[in-house]
């Protein structure tokens, strides 16, 4: 045995260089893999229109966005937005000795909110003190400027009901002072809704819809039909009037039912606790995009785009004078503009949730008879509705408009490529109505809504004012017969069989 140990040791001694070479290689590999930098964080990107601004204007918009919306892992709660941030009311039940100690609290959800409440969900959520010493606390940054404080949940223990609070930015310098929370201090916890929505979004949606909701996730480049870019604030398949936004229910419906014929799958099995936060997060991304777009538009209207500035410089203005004017605008006027934009976003999104924004037919669907379909067919080809212009004479989506050179919206220039385009700049084909695939839903009500309000963001116009309700129903009956009529793959089915198909309540 001793001999064996000796020889083992001896060979181990020799082993060192061999092991050493191996371990060295392993070390090199580990360093390569781990990298020398910190873990990267996802970041929001800025839109193309922001990129068109003159540099200081661009920076102003970017900074405003970071201030009002934050970054994906650090969401800012901007209460001006019509978003359910998932607030909790909180009250301190036991004073703490130091600011950083966990403090016993009682948290209550606001009515109807389905916000989840676990330790993970609340981590990083914002806190606003509504009473107590911390309610108006400010601090001084290293440069001696007074700054407001952003309180956050550092850790929440649901069992013990204790909360640890952290503050951002971290205080430095003698002038900073943090009072520990005392019994009876009231506060509101904000934002776990969006935190949860963000987590779910990154798991389920980000790889197509992008970190910023721009429809440019890694997978999106392989799609023929691009994922929705939320940043115009427009969604195609809604239940509201043509000038209104999508409602929460519309987005829930889209997520649950999917969009047949595209790569947007049905997430039917999402629970309410999952789908609420996701939809809220998507709305928030849409609002961020809208805000950015309109901010950019404001600067552009003041001639602060980079092309405009070049023109102005050519026209004789000095760069300094432009920059001074811009600086003044940013300091004095832009904050008000930003507020105003937020207000307008708030109004439009809130109005869309009201009952009068909903499109509901006033009369029941005309019975689905051959006569109704014939009337629908005539309207389809008529000059009032002009359906055949895009959808083609047989409804196959091959109408003359698909071969015309369309005019670019907002200009009077024609495109260089024939065919129709949507508001996001992608080529789009009119629906082949013989396929039996209805992206926004296959109920008669859904088709009614597509015709009444059009499809937002696409060349499908609203016909709510141009057509009477009976006419719309006739067109709906005609369209729904197309997959089974002659000219489709289903042409073997006889007309009489179609006539006996039962609509609601029918025999």
């Amino acid at each position, binding site marked *: 045995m001793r001999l064996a140990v000796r020889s*083992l040791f001896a060979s181990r001694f020799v082993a060192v260089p061999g092991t050493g070479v191996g371990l060295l290689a392993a070390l090199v590999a580990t360093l390569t893999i781990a990298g020398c930098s910190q873990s990267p964080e996802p970041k929001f990107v800025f839109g193309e229109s922001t990129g068109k601004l003159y540099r200081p204007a661009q920076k102003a918009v970017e900074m405003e966005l970071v201030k009002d919306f934050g970054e994906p892992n650090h969401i800012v709660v901007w209460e001006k937005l019509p978003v359910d941030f998932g607030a909790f009311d909180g009250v301190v039940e036991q004073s703490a000795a130091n600011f950083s100690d966990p403090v016993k609290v009682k948290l209550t959800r606001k009515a109807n909110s389905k916000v989840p409440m676990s330790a993970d969900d609340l981590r990083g959520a914002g806190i606003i003190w509504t009473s107590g010493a911390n309610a108006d606390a400010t601090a001084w940054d290293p440069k001696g400027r007074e700054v407001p404080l952003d309180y956050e949940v550092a850790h929440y223990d649901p069992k013990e009901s204790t909360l640890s609070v952290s503050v951002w930015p971290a205080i430095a310098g003698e002038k900073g002072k943090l009072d520990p929370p005392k019994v009876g201090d009231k506060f509101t916890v904000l934002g776990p809704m969006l935190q949860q929505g963000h987590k779910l979004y990154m798991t389920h949606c980000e790889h197509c819809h992008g970190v910023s909701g721009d429809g440019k996730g890694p997978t999106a480049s392989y799609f023929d039909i691009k994922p929705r870019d939320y940043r115009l604030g427009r969604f195609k398949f809604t239940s509201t009037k043509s000038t209104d936004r999508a409602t929460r229910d519309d987005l829930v419906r889209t997520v649950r039912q999917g969009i047949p014929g595209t790569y947007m799958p049905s997430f039917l099995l999402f629970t*309410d606790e999952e789908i609420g936060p996701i939809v809220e997060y998507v709305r928030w991304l849409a609002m961020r995009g809208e805000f950015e777009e309109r901010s950019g538009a404001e600067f552009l209207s003041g001639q602060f785009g980079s092309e405009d500035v070049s023109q102005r410089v050519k026209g004789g203005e000095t760069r300094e004078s432009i920059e001074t004017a811009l600086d003044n605008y940013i300091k004095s006027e832009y904050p008000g503009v930003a507020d105003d934009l937020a207000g307008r976003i708030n109004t439009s999104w809130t109005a869309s949730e009201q009952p009068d924004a909903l499109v509901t037919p006033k*009369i029941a669907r005309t019975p689905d008879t051959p006569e109704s379909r014939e009337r629908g067919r005539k309207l389809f080809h008529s000059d009032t509705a002009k359906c055949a212009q895009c959808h083609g004479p047989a409804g196959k989506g091959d109408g003359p408009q698909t071969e015309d050179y369309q005019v670019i919206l907002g200009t009077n220039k024609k495109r260089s490529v024939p065919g129709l385009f949507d508001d996001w700049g992608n080529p789009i084909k009119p629906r082949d109505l013989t396929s039996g695939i209805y992206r926004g839903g*296959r109920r008669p009500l859904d088709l009614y809504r597509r015709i009444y309000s059009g499809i937002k963001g696409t060349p499908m116009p609203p016909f709510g004012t141009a057509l009477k309700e009976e006419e719309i129903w006739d067109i709906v009956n005609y369209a729904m017969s197309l997959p089974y009529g002659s000219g489709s793959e289903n042409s073997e089915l006889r007309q009489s069989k179609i006539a006996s198909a039962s*609509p609601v309540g029918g025999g």
Partner: protein
Amino acid sequence: MKRLWAFFFILWPVVAITAGVISPSMHWWFPGAAQSPIGQRIDDLFYMILIIVTVVFIGTQVAMGYVLLQGARDTDAPGRAMFTHGSHALEVIWTVVPAGVLLFIAFYQLDTWAAYRVKENYPMSSRLSPVAEITARQFEWRIRYPNPKRKFESLPEVDAWLRQPAPDDLYAVNELHVPTGRAVVVHLRTADVQHAFFVPILRIKQDAVPGLVIPIIFEALKPDAYEWVCAELCGWGHYKMKARVKAEPKDDFESYLKGLEREQFDDGVSGHGTKKAAAGESKSEAAAEAPK
């Protein structure tokens, strides 16, 4: 040192068997008892094979451990290794016996396979009342039910229905309802690439092959919701095809289909037969679609 190695090779099978023994209680096991007759037969076959395999595993590892311990003991012993080129008798024994066991396992299972996959063995009543046609696509399951009023009189009629959607067909996505209490036939197809219909608790799986329409027969014994996933790589969303088979008594199944029909032909005014037509309409629609 050598004995340590011998024990190493004895220890690891012990750890493996222990892991196997504690697995059911740790839920690293079937996701529940099989809830279909074929599933129960599959489980029985599984356990039969498991017993045979465990016996062989223990036997082989014990033999190996014995041989290693003997080797560790004898490696410095005087004399030489046993000089033998083999044993004819042993070769015969350990050829014939495993062959018998393997052939037994093989032939014992043929019935179960035939019941599941040979469609001539399906009860005619089930074949004449297919519950649904399931079209798998990237990355969801689109379901088409025949209208409850439709009665198929012959197999060619069923084939015709499979080829041509009818205007009164009912459509759903990602949630398949089936009645309990009878063998149910669904027809599986795909719109784009290969997928596979896999319901773990029912123990059934069938690939969806482009260009083919494949019947699957199963019976759900208990009313419940069973998880349904895709089991053939179909692209980046292969893991996302999360769906559900909802088995319910016949009456509930029929009222589900009726509800589906009402929704599908809802015109926003007379839908659902309730007064919620106008303002609350979209909310109740969402509620009706929400998972129960």
